[in-house]
């Protein structure tokens, strides 16, 4: 298993490099001088501007510039935010935990809904439950997150007044009260993001279980006299999860995209809303760094999916 994880890590590196190359080429291809903004900004002294030009080596050949940029990124030297006036890495580190919290809890919610519903629907295909679940799944992934978010705000914050619609990191409370307030403000973003993902996961789980449940070994397990619960949990679900893990990993870019939107609607101070503010403020170093962090997060989650694979199907890790 250790060797397998190491091998996956080595495979993940080229894709990170590829992503960084794409990012860099985009920036290099962009018309005009990406630091031209600085020339008109009187808040930035000329020596900083000159230092930045030298640091990013704007006049060097593109390959040298890429290598230099990569080395700087690896050293943790991510530049300086023009608008917030602190180092980009500090700014991002402050924000990442919030995003991870929201994305993580919404994924847990999505799987907690999708797994039982999908398995149950697949065990009784074309039953009433299956058709209702299918319809809800379609409705769920056709409702864009920005619309459901607004709807929830309209119902629960504006009309009923139960939940706050601005997410705060600095809640003026301690102990249980703090947890309760945090829980209350996290409900809506997590539900919006989680149910949106749950809709597509339900369909994946259903079709994966349908593929597995007709296998001969499942019939064997049943005819051995194992009770149905054991057959489903130990024989069907574990094998059905393998394709589901792939699809969940493929969904990761979309999940982080959804996180940007939800962070924007509920004003959650995560890296998604940081990206939007940075774009609106033309804050190039922050934009580049946040995009790269998103890419890294996607790669890390894909890596986790690979490791779960190895656990679900030991054959993969021995190969």
């Amino acid at each position: 298993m250790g060797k397998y994880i190491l091998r996956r890590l080595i495979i993940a590196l080229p894709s990170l490099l590829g992503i960084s190359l794409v990012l860099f080429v985009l920036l290099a291809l962009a018309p005009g001088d990406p630091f031209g903004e600085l020339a008109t900004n009187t808040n930035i002294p000329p020596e900083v501007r000159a230092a930045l030009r030298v640091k990013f080596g704007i006049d060097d050949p593109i390959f040298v510039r890429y290598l230099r940029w990569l080395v700087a990124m690896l050293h943790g030297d991510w530049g300086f935010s023009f608008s917030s006036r602190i180092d980009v890495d500090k700014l991002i580190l402050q924000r990442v935990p919030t995003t991870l919290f929201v994305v993580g809890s919404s994924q847990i919610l999505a799987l907690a809904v999708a797994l039982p519903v999908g398995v149950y629907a697949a065990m009784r295909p074309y039953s009433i439950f299956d058709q209702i679940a299918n319809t809800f799944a379609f409705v769920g992934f056709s409702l864009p997150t920005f619309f459901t978010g607004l709807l929830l705000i309209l119902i629960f914050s504006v009309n009923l007044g139960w939940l706050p619609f601005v997410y705060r990191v600095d809640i003026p409370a301690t102990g249980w009260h703090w947890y309760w307030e945090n829980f209350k403000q996290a409900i809506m973003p997590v539900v919006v993001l989680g149910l949106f993902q749950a809709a597509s996961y339900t369909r994946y789980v259903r079709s994966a279980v349908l593929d597995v449940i007709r296998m001969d070994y499942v019939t064997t397990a049943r005819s051995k006299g194992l009770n149905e619960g054991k057959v489903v949990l130990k024989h069907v679900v574990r094998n059905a999860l393998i394709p589901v893990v792939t699809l969940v990993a493929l969904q990761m870019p979309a999940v982080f995209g959804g996180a940007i939107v939800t962070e924007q609607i509920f004003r959650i101070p995560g890296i998604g809303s940081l990206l939007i503010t940075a774009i609106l403020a033309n804050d190039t170093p922050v934009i580049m760094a946040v995009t790269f962090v998103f890419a890294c997060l996607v790669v890390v989650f894909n890596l986790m999916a690979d490791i779960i694979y190895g656990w679900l199907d030991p054959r993969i890790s021995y190969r």
Partner: protein
Amino acid sequence: MAVASVVILAMLTSAVVLGPFVWRLPINEIDFTARLTSPSWQHPFGTDDLGQDLLARMLYGGRISLAVGFAAMAVAIVAGTLIGAISGISRGSVDAVLMWVTDLFLALPQLPLLLLVIYLFRDFLKNWVGPEGGVFILIVMVIGAFRWMPVARLVRAQFLSLREKEFVEAARALGATTPRLVIRHILPNSLGPVIVAGTIDVAAAIIAESTLSFLGLGFPPDIPTWGRLLFDAKDYLDIAPHWALFAGAAIFLTVLAINFIGDGLRDALDPRKVM
């Protein structure tokens, strides 16, 4: 469901195409006496904060939203089919490199990159083709550029199995060149799953466009696409909920109808139908 969805989508499409000829209120007539009014006979969908008629704006914006959806789908399908076909017909390193690029694109965080590309290239295209056309081309191109990967994989998988079939071998034995083989024999047979993927891509592209507009980074404010209407409406949720509801419902209905059509097509085209 799929048939009902075709009807709904046809109605929505004809409404946005023909609607502006029937509903003749201008989209930008500012009337401060009728600010934020609820739906009435005079303004069936109500008005926004400048007193502009929302029905007219929705019909106009729907044209853009649907046009973006279909155009981006076309871009994605053309790019995906091209890359999938090249990679499926050539063996060895070309195939490996193209598939590596495909996997790389699949792992890219799409929305952040969309935002990045729009941020970097917006001004350039605006100066080049004008604000509306520039943004339209940019949005269609980038959405297409981030949606071609599933199509490429599908086409490649089809090519891999089709190119070993007897009829292809027979054509080759008759002396058909590789381009002729690809265009006349393999490609037409591999398009079934592509059509399904393309249908679903339209829905994804419409959502992507409204997401960009909703984040305030899509079309400029004077082009009221459905996402843009939602973006403008979100600050008036408490006093004018109708503003957000109609635009959101329009996006939802369109996307739902397209998804159902895609599902129906998949069932119709899939030979190993589950019964």
